[in-house]
């Protein structure tokens, strides 16, 4: 799994890439939870995700719930094609605000 964290105005953008699986999702969890603690607005860029499984999905849900508890926001953007299907299976579109692009998510 690769990641890149940037700050755009008041939004922390976390770009995840590669495989977000049982091995790497603890690292994704750490990054996401730190980000929602530090920042009221977090946008997760998923354009580089080549694989995500139920543990990756659970990590995103946990980060969302943590953000909400702190009255923050976490949204997703640019969901890659392979992640899209997993989101569909998990009915995540009912849970997350999902932006087509990072630019849209920042707007």
């Amino acid at each position, binding site marked *: 799994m690769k990641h890149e964290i940037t700050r755009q105005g008041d939004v922390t953008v976390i770009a995840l890439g590669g495989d977000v699986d*049982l*091995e790497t999702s603890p690292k994704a969890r750490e990054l996401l939870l730190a980000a929602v603690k530090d920042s009221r607005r977090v946008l997760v860029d998923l354009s580089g995700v080549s694989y995500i499984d*139920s543990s990756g999905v659970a990590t995103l849900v946990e980060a969302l719930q943590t953000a909400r508890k702190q009255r923050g926001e976490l949204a997703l953007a640019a969901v890659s094609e392979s992640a899209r*299907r997993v989101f569909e*299976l*998990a009915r995540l579109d009912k*849970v997350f605000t999902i932006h087509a692009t990072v630019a849209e998510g920042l707007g």
Partner: protein
Amino acid sequence: MTTDNEPERLALLRFPARADRLKLVRGLVTAAVRMCECDEALERDVVLAVDEACQNVVRHAYPAGVEGDAELEILRDGIVLVFRLRDFGPKVDASCLRPGKLKPNALNGRGLHFIHDIMDEVGCLTPSDGTGNLLEMRKRLNPCGTPRNET
């Protein structure tokens, strides 16, 4: 669509039930599905379902601190791919392997859903030597080309 013959074995993979081995499983399963020339979406689905089943072995088959193996057999039965995943841990009641209601907000419980949503058949078999658990998953593929070696 299954045949009466015992399905043909493509490969058998034995691996330590650890999270860092799952990418090896995915590499093998991807190649096995490609062998059957189905479309990419189906390929991704099957890889996900098998990975989720292996994750369950990694996370649940052995008590914390105990190392154990998983064994994945991949077979082909006409145009049906068959995956038999076994562990060598304590026997689990088959009812544990049925998914509950899908809760989009939950922090776990998705793995079995993915498996059942994707696969055509999921069932528990009895391992030949009686120990551990053996999960069988079957998926009918729709090859773009003609299925090969359908004997």
